């Protein structure tokens, strides 16, 4: 068990030390795992001097906005699919189709989306990313929320409807409070996926104003002189939200990531 933990975490720890080591320590050979004086100069360098702060902000805005949109649109659709029986066995077909869009290799839609955004003059805008990420997250939201809704007994909703509530009202007042944990877990998944996303951001944004954090980091890494301290500092900050989320949600993650096939 301990070896497994070390195996998983040691490389990340290594990167963290690089971000905290002064340049002298970094190029020492062999470089130390523990005995060095930490410095925050790379963090300052990255976020204040070199503009990674802007990438961070863009990532945050795009992730939150697309998650919200996906949640609203997806939860509505999920509710309908869970509670209404549509003709021609549409429920099953729609669900499977929605799931299948998640199986697409990203590059397949990235190329035409680039061309479409270019024609719409939406390249290098946050809006294009928000819209694309919403579409990206939507199948997952629908799949997850449908499962949560289906697990819910109907009695409370039926009672509300008998009492004269509208469908939407019943949804809001009765059902949503009951699925809040599921909603929260789904929201965090979407945030993680949007925050980490790379290919679409790479394709759709090339300017500093529009780049997300992953693209910003990648852009500097693939250039000639790589400042590893700065890179590590940026990467360290990029992974902090993820760690927080992983810890908070580890109970739900296995279930979510295996599409509900396996209860964690």
């Amino acid at each position, binding site marked *: 068990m301990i070896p497994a933990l070390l195996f998983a975490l040691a490389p990340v720890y290594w990167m963290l030390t690089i971000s905290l080591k002064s340049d002298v320590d970094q190029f020492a050979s062999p470089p130390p795992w523990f005995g060095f004086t930490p410095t925050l100069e790379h963090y300052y360098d990255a976020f204040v001097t070199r503009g990674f702060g802007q990438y961070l902000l863009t990532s945050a805005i795009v992730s939150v906005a697309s998650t919200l949109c996906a949640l609203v649109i997806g939860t509505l659709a999920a509710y309908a699919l869970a509670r209404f029986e*549509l003709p021609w066995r549409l429920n099953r077909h729609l669900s499977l189709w929605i799931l299948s869009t998640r199986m697409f290799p990203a590059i397949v839609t990235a190329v035409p989306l680039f061309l479409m955004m270019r024609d719409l003059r939406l390249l290098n805008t946050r809006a294009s990313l928000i819209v694309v990420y919403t579409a990206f997250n939507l199948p997952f939201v629908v799949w997850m929320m449908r499962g949560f809704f289906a697990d819910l007994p109907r009695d409370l909703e039926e009672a509300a409807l008998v009492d004269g509530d509208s469908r939407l009202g019943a949804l809001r007042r009765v059902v949503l409070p009951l699925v809040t944990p599921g909603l929260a877990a789904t929201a965090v998944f979407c945030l993680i996926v949007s925050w980490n996303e790379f290919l679409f951001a790479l394709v759709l944004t090339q300017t500093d104003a529009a780049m997300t954090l992953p693209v910003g980091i990648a852009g500097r890494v693939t250039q000639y002189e790589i400042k590893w301290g700065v890179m590590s500092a940026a990467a360290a900050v990029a992974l902090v939200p993820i760690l927080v989320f992983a810890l908070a949600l580890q109970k739900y993650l296995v279930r979510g990531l295996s599409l509900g096939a396996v209860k964690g």
Partner: protein
Amino acid sequence: MPKSRRFFSAQNRREWLLPAIFIAPALAVLLSLSIYPLIYSITISLQQETSGGAVWTFGNFTRLTSDNFFLTAMAHTFVYAVVALSCEFLLGLGLALLLNSKLRGRGLFRASLLVPMMLPSVVVGVVWRLMLNPDFGALNGTLRRFGINTESLTWTASPKLAMLSVIAVDVWQWTPFVFLVLLAGLQAIPEEPYEAALIDGSSRRQTFWHVTLPLLKPSILIVLLLRTMDLLRVFDQIFILTEGGPGFATETISLYIYRTAFRFFDFGYAAAMSFVLLALTNVISVVYIKFLQAKEAG
């Protein structure tokens, strides 16, 4: 009053309206951003620029069969997928079987194991470029401490070792996922089959093959499906680690499509290749799902 199985069945036209309104936005988003791009992609893959303007032709597709780069990229992708999948599966299964007991500090353990796969792929790339750096990376540093000569071990810069390196990174990142899914599957198996097997005098090996494995099939299939899909379309980590290099050594199909579209601006050809990739992943996932459904029925 008899309860109907669903709230509404589709008898009355009026009663479709509400669900239709609920589902419409989602459908609109997906149709415009997932389906329409595909159609757009088909149209550009069937066109080529000539001096007289754009012409409808299968040229992009026929070009595939003679394009060595394409075929090599496909080969690389398959090798990558098969090797990584085997390692991840065997390691994950082995660990799950070994650690199949009530663990203490379970939440923290699980959260820690999930870190590698939750990281942004860019961060994974940075982490491992640091680890694998021939001069001041931790790996070579540790090897040197044991007296091993690391001069030829340039990992991601070495044509011979690059593919191995990127596969190893993938194994590092995703074995925990396989482990966790299979572990959850194992722990969901009830006691009765094992007890029955014991009473029948079954050996440990027999129990494993005839009791554990069949009951684990759904988890195994889903994890294999998910990993296969991800491995075939891999892009991010390889882009950061090697950019497909050195030379063409680690170029997978997604990378080649990206390069064709965004370095050579040959969008039609890139679109044609995307469709081959899409068809491939479709076929494979259908095969897996058939297996999965056969298992549930049987």
